[in-house]
């Protein structure tokens, strides 16, 4: 392996070695998805018992929403936390004076985000199947497209957050944990978009995630694959990722103008 793939692997190796030596970090990857699934799983069990068999499909949609939202959230946090690890270890100066290109840095962060997401969500998927009789793979092959869209949206938000950290330094760190939760009400994770007030529906329709969750409910509630929503999700993701990339490129350039790559984190 040489050139760009090797440099990308170099940065991934740095993070994988870190996880090998830090069990709290490894535990943290699975802790929140499993905790979330426990809470929503018991809630779903309670609702099933109160409302009877007719609620089973709705309950499935609830658990599907929990799992797929974690895919988006963990993908976003996978990029931002990996970037923050470099900042916390005061290693960015060495990374940025190596031949690693900015796009290779992003590629490494995204690759780590995929690994972190899979490690984090897999136990929650197993828990949903084993304890709450919800098999997310019953969504069929289209599940892969849902995953892809939610991951891309997570990466777009993450690039914007990393840009804010480059711009504002450590003060922007809390965005890594909080920003996606601000989009959750508009993402229609647990309810259809038409439940939202008419005034905020345009916001929901501009989010790739809202189309993914509409698509998921289409399969679980109506047995229909909503290709229209999937197409919207892909189209919007192209725009989101394009805009996020431009913001990142701009802020990276500005960081080199201001000298922030030297002082970031202080």
């Amino acid at each position, binding site marked *: 392996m040489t050139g760009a793939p090797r440099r990308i692997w170099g940065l991934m190796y740095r993070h994988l070695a870190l996880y090998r030596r830090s069990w709290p970090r490894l535990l943290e990857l699975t802790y929140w998805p499993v905790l979330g699934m426990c809470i929503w799983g018991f809630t779903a069990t309670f609702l099933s018992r109160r409302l009877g068999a007719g609620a089973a499909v709705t309950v499935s949609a609830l658990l599907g929403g929990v799992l797929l939202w974690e895919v988006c959230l963990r993908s976003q946090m996978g990029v931002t936390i990996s970037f923050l*690890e470099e900042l916390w270890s*005061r290693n960015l100066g*060495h990374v940025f004076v190596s*031949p690693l290109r900015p796009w290779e840095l992003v590629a490494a962060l995204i690759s780590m985000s995929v690994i972190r997401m899979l490690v984090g969500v897999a136990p929650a998927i197993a828990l949903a199947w084993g304890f709450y009789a919800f098999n997310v793979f019953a969504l069929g092959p289209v599940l892969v497209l849902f995953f892809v869209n939610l991951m891309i949206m997570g990466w777009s938000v993450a690039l914007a957050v990393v840009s804010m950290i480059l711009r504002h330094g450590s003060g922007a760190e809390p965005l890594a944990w909080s920003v996606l939760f601000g989009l959750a009400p508009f993402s229609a994770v647990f309810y259809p978009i038409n439940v939202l007030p008419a005034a905020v529906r345009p916001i929901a329709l501009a989010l790739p995630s809202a189309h993914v969750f509409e698509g998921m409910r289409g399969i679980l509630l109506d047995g229909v694959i909503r290709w229209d929503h999937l197409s919207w999700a892909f189209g919007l993701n192209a725009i989101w990722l394009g805009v996020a990339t431009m913001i990142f490129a701009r802020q990276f350039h500005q960081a*080199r103008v201001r*000298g922030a790559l030297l002082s970031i984190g202080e």
Partner: protein
Amino acid sequence: MNQPPNNVIEVHGLVKRYGEVLAVDGIDFAATAGATVGLLGGNGAGKTTTIAMLLGLLLPTSGSIHVLGHDMLRDRFAALARMNFSSPYVSLPQRLTVRENLRVYGHLYNVRHTDERIAELSAELDLGALLDRPAGQLSAGQKTRVALAKSLINRPELLLLDEPTASLDPDTGDLVRGWLERYRGETGCTILLASHNMAEVERLCSHVLMMKQGRVVDRGSPQDLLDRYGRDDLEEVFLDIARDRRSASRPGVHQDTVPA
């Protein structure tokens, strides 16, 4: 402008302004292959800013920088692969072992046979007992040796060192200087060294750039500077310049190119 082919560093009219603050004020210098150039000056003189611009971490307000024949404003990655940097103010990941840290940088610098290179550096810098220890558990002197190993991992043709022996005891500092001399002797590497240790500069540097308030206010070999200021050591010359105590007895040799 045609660049002389053997100039490893070529800087012209370099300016860095942060709003109203002029951190670097139009400096010019060049260094030929094999030269060791000392960048001296008080805190805030512009040394670190100059090094950051040479590394591409910081964009100049104006001026040009060519390193190893590459324009750092347009083609910095080609040069970055052939140079390296060490500073006590930039850390390596603390939880990774020394070996893992060196492997990371072996990958980032595309070093062939990384593990063999780590073994070589381990023998040269006496890192054998440290290789499998987390970087965060090392003493200051051990960290400096590891940082030096990281900066030599790609056999750089140009080494930028920001206070490489800061906070080291005299013994370790002397060992580090010895390693740098040996590496330079074996490879013909060019070294740019920012330091507050005047004895270190006198020992290592073939040429010195004295910086003050963002400008190069004097330059020459350590002996030239001692002769011109009529002093016995560079520390006195440094103080003369920093405090405007005494001028050089004759004008400095303002040659822009630093010979090896």
